[in-house]
């Protein structure tokens, strides 16, 4: 199945991609509205919520360069100390920039 990249074809492909993406945004809620939510489901969902972010961040830490790793460490440290996201993220970005400035 291919579309020809005439104006209409590209537009249709963009619409299909947009619809696919929206279905992923709505799908989880659609399912949750139909399952009974007991304590077990709640426990699963709660543990899964943070795990999504862990699974997104871990490859950045493992496959990233030293700057990316130090940035994540600095962010976590400042966040644990101050519990304020903005200083934590700022510390992370500055650490990455400084690390790369020095390392290269």
């Amino acid at each position, binding site marked *: 199945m291919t579309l020809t990249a005439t104006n209409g074809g590209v537009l249709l492909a963009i619409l299909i991609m947009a619809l696919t*993406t929206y279905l*992923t945004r709505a799908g989880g809620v659609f399912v949750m509205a139909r399952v009974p939510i007991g304590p077990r489901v709640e426990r699963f969902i709660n543990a*899964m919520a*943070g795990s999504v972010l862990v*699974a997104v961040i871990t490859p950045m830490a493992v496959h990233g360069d030293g700057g990316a790793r130090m940035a994540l460490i600095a962010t976590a440290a400042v966040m644990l100390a101050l519990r304020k996201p903005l200083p934590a993220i700022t510390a992370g970005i500055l650490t990455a920039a400084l690390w790369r400035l020095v390392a290269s």
Partner: protein
Amino acid sequence: MTRDDAARPGLGHLLEGFRRMVPLSLFVIVFGLAFGVAALQQGLSGLETLLMSGLVFAGAAQFATLELWGETIPLVPLVAITLAINARHLLMGAAFYPHLRELPTGRRYASLILLSDANWAMAMNGGTTAARLGILIGGGLALWTTWMIGTGLGVAFGSGIGEPERFGLDAIMGCFLLAMLVGDKRDLWVLLPWGAAAIAALAAMVWLPPNAHVIVGALAGGLVGLMLPSTRNEASP
């Protein structure tokens, strides 16, 4: 700024959510710019590029499918890659469902239109239901607006910052999501599911097809959470 426990977010909640997302959103301009430039180089027109950013609003999937846009557009890989990368939204939406439960159906599904990593992570981080919805929708609008501004700048000027990694810009999203993750967690038990999620994600990157690692890691973390003793926060099953 009123903060009540009503499930319905007012304009104030949306504005507050927008305001809280502005700092990160400004950096999103850079990513939008990079996408605009890359899409033009791939042969998409400026209008098509803007339409894609505006309607799809999913940077990772837009970048990953970019090479498919040629003389002909293969639909199966387009949908498959989009689904694989955005499947994490399914889990994110499910986790956010408790805060959408009280909304009428139309508003519930409209609230999800701009769900993405950053505003979801911030909305999960705490507050009343109305405040969380304000962040999901208002914060989503902030991210969408700057994503469009960035894409527009990329389309208009056709060149971006040559080496974003030089300024640590590539690390921003990771740092933001990590800050949200660490956010309001004080219970050390979460380290068990999180550890499982990290290990499963890395294993999936080695042995499974590309883009499967987020789903695999998140589900592994959820399963470990299921097995933990239920002495915390909630009644025993």
